[in-house]
């Protein structure tokens, strides 16, 4: 269905088309099919790769349908389209989670300040919302405009959800195009949500050097009344901080968090503490150190009410997304709620954030004195005793472990007083408690881990929000020329295949090779959990600027928008290409010229999937850790045998560059070593100048020699001229290239894929 005239007029009204900050581009507020040709062009080079989790489809009552081999479902769907449908469904879950978060946050702030409340991101950020500007064509000026962004996301989502119904879309390519749409909408929602909280709560913006904040369960002074917030929406957490400040209680109560609420709370007040990522939720809550547990939304383990009650802690749920069957108590007085809570251990849902804050703080003050005895972690003697029955032979625990850990050996050794192995299992544990559930002797394995876990305190820098326009002006040219070898974003969850601090290793290997390293969410937390010989974390060692060799924590999951935004700003501010309603132009620029790569080393959530899928539509390749294979879809090229044609922007001729850059758009690597060389390779771009490519090749070869050994066996794909061979490796690289019959390739300064497919964007638009 093409857009009707009325809808076009409506869109012009929504985006205030007559505002003349830039001419309106070809795709204001794109609908489902407006960017389909762009998507198909990407899919031509980067084919979807499917790894079905299940041979069947059981979505409707025609089924179950067996889809193995060339069998089709009763509705006619095949296994590839069924995988792509799942991807769309899961991406929509992620987009909905961020979108609903954004809507709640924006509505809460509109209630407080009104819809005309101005967006002002400080003196360093003029292009306030590069994603919303590009996708919608709207330059948001106030909270009301951010609500329009969420309304646009909601409008598109209804059509996308509809397409997943039985007997709707039937082609895997169209499902993927729709998943790209969901991913792009997700980024709109992320940006709207984070801008809203930055302006509404006065979070850091226009500064780089944000406060260093304490992280780790050892950082919590459990002698004080302890409140622990869990989730991703800091509305109630911030209300708790406000209540404590207003009542002069801030230094008498510990407020700490798990997951992104913690990160956002420390942006609001750097005295708050971060306990750790999702993988530490159960571990910490089972330890009983919290007097009050507060849940908001997203990635909150669903048995928190049970854990809180077993620990004798109070528990308050604060989001309409997670009600746990509890009574909603906003209409009651705080005294009434507290009485029931303290006398009867009753748990409540309290949607009124200010009332919730009062109840939570008062409950913590009341409970702390009587809970001191329960706030003790298991000693090694106790741990050995409760593990007494394990002989390490049944292995029921190992078989249940989704991270494939040798728990049997660790518990059997702990029983004998040796906790070293259990300590190393804890570093890799994702906190699912499946081992404990499976243990034939009912050993409380998560609790036993308390006796083996280090309780160090680490420093993480509070999330700094948007990248500054002036930083973009400084790094735009070296990034596009390739002399800054890449911008890497570590995002997403803590479903890590190996040690929790492997992200720190990856970040540091890249920073010391002069990549711009950015982090967010659980990945940003995990990266702080490694100290050097001087006891410093990467946040203390590296400058927090968006520049070569620096390390930046942008903030929570919703702050991921700022890294995609930075890539857009390079095209818009540095290259001065118009971004208003100009998705393809921006994405084409990023794909061909901005050496950016997203990494989700510990993927598990649907949110991380939608963020990653959105990144691919923007032309940003994504590298996933091994658990990402369970998303069941990747995007991979045929390497040198793929379609690498571009248009030379100067001559407007089609040129076969013969160089697979970026090589894949979404792939999984098995080990951190392989991830390192893959990330480096994914930052190659066809626009790299020979000196820029030489710098990138130098990183590639040095990392490859360090972690894999010898010269990479695909150098012939990426060396275009002899000038690009790094001097230190010249002799051996030339010998290798000779051996494999390498021939020089064309180096283009204005490569574009605009014009290699049907689009409304003229080739001229790519050149300024």
């Amino acid at each position, binding site marked *: 269905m093409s857009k009707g005239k009325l809808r076009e007029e409506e869109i012009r009204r929504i985006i205030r088309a007559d505002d003349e900050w830039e001419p309106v581009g070809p795709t204001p507020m794109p609908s489902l099919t407006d960017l389909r040709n762009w998507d198909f062009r990407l899919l031509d080079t980067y084919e979807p790769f499917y790894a079905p989790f299940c041979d*069947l489809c059981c979505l409707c009552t025609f089924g179950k349908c067996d889809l193995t081999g060339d069998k089709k479902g009763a509705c006619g769907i095949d296994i590839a389209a069924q995988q792509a449908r799942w991807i769309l469904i899961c991406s929509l879950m992620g987009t909905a989670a961020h979108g609903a978060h954004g809507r709640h946050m924006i509505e809460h702030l509109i209630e407080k300040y009104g819809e005309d409340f101005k967006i002002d991101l400080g003196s360093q950020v003029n292009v306030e919302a590069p994603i919303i500007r590009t996708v919608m064509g709207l330059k948001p000026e106030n909270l009301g405009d951010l609500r329009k962004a969420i309304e646009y996301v909601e409008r598109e989502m209804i059509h996308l959800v509809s397409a997943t119904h039985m007997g709707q879309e039937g082609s895997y390519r169209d499902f993927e195009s729709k998943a790209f749409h969901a991913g792009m909408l997700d980024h709109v929602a992320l940006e709207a949500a984070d801008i809203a909280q930055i302006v509404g709560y006065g979070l850091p913006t226009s500064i780089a050097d944000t406060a260093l904040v304490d992280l780790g369960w050892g950082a919590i002074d459990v002698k004080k009344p302890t409140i622990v917030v869990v989730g991703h929406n800091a509305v109630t957490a911030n209300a708790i901080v406000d209540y404590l400040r207003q009542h002069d209680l801030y230094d008498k109560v510990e407020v700490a968090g798990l997951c992104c609420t913690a990160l956002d709370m420390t942006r609001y007040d750097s005295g708050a503490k971060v306990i750790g990522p999702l993988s530490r939720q159960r571990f910490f809550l089972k330890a009983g150190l919290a007097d009050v547990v507060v849940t908001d939304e997203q990635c909150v383990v669903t048995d928190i009410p049970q854990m809180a009650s077993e620990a004798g802690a109070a528990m308050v749920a604060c989001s309409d997304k997670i009600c746990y069957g509890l009574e909603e108590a906003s209409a009651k007085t705080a005294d009434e709620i507290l009485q029931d809570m303290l006398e009867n251990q009753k748990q409540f849902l309290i949607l009124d954030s200010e009332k919730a804050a009062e109840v939570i703080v008062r409950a913590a003050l009341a409970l702390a004195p009587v809970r001191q005895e329960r706030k003790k972690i298991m000693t090694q003697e106790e741990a050995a005793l409760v593990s007494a029955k394990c002989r390490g032979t049944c292995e029921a625990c190992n078989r249940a472990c989704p991270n494939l850990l040798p728990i049997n050996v660790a518990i059997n050794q702990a029983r004998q007083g040796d906790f070293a192995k259990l300590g190393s299992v804890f570093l890799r544990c994702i906190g699912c408690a*499946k081992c404990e559930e499976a243990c034939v002797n009912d050993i409380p394995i998560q609790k036993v881990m308390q006796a083996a876990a280090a309780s160090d305190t680490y420093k993480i820098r509070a999330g700094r929000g948007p990248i500054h326009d002036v930083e973009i002006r400084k790094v735009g040219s070296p990034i596009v020329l390739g002399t800054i070898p890449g911008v890497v974003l570590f995002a997403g969850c803590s479903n890590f295949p190996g040690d929790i601090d492997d992200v720190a290793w990856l970040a540091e290997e890249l920073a010391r090779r002069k990549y711009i390293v950015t982090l967010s969410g659980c990945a940003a937390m995990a990266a702080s959990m490694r100290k050097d010989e001087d006891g410093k974390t990467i946040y203390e060692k590296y400058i927090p600027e968006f520049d070569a060799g620096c390390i930046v924590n942008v903030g929570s999951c919703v702050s991921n928008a700022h890294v995609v935004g930075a890539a857009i700003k390079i095209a818009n501010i540095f290259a001065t290409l118009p971004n208003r309603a100009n998705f393809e132009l921006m994405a084409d620029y990023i794909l061909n010229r901005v050496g950016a790569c997203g990494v989700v080393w510990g993927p598990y959530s649907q949110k991380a999937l939608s963020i990653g899928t959105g990144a691919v539509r923007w032309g940003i390749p994504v590298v996933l850790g091994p658990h990402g294979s369970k998303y069941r879809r990747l995007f*991979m090229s045929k390497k040198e045998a793929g379609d690498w044609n571009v248009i030379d922007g100067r001559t407007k001729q089609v040129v076969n560059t013969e160089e697979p850059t970026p090589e894949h758009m979404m792939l999984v690597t098995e080990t951190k070593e392989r991830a390192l060389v893959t990330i480096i390779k994914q930052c190659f771009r066809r626009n790299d100048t020979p000196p820029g490519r030489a710098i990138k090749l130098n990183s590639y070869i040095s990392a490859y020699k360090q972690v894999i050994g010898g010269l990479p066996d695909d150098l012939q794909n990426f060396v275009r001229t002899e000038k690009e061979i790094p001097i230190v490796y010249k002799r051996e690289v030339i010998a290798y290239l000779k051996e494999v019959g390498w021939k020089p390739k064309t180096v283009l300064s204005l490569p574009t894929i605009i014009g290699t497919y049907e689009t409304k964007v003229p080739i001229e638009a790519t050149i300024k």
Partner: protein
Amino acid sequence: MASELMTMPYYKVNILTGTKAAKVVSEPAEAASIIDKATNPLYVFGAEVIDSPVGDKLLIDFALDIAKSRNIPICATAHVKKKMMELGVLPDSTYDIIEIVHFLKDKNWMGVRGKGFHDLVLFTGVRCDLAERGLSTLKHFAPHLKTFAICRRSHPNADFAVPIITKTEKWRGYLEGVIGELGTA
């Protein structure tokens, strides 16, 4: 035993939810004969071959013996190449696990030695959850080849799978059995 199908592997995360399960290859002689019948096999080494001890040797020592016995080309995924270089062997390919699976899907791909598609692909030492995903891809999208997971944790999405072998000595016996059979075949 020959007709037994693998649906419940060692790791619960890999339980089969489907209709097409691997045939369990309990006897080393049977394993050797599957390998022997292949005309253009490939052996994919995963990262765990270099750090999984089997008795006083490493898993890679056995895998290399199997590969050598029939001159089977090796794809060294992850960072396995480094250890192979130490052992004085160079792999034929260094594609990572997902990359090699991606290429194997394509019947027109010429294989790691340019001799056409591989009709049998052996896997050892790939992280079990990741291996299972790759085996599922090949089960569904590569009808032109057979897969054999030479892994003691067992893999339902392969065409052929070793049964669950928890005791290291038995595992060693299995691997030595396969090598022995290949040596005399």
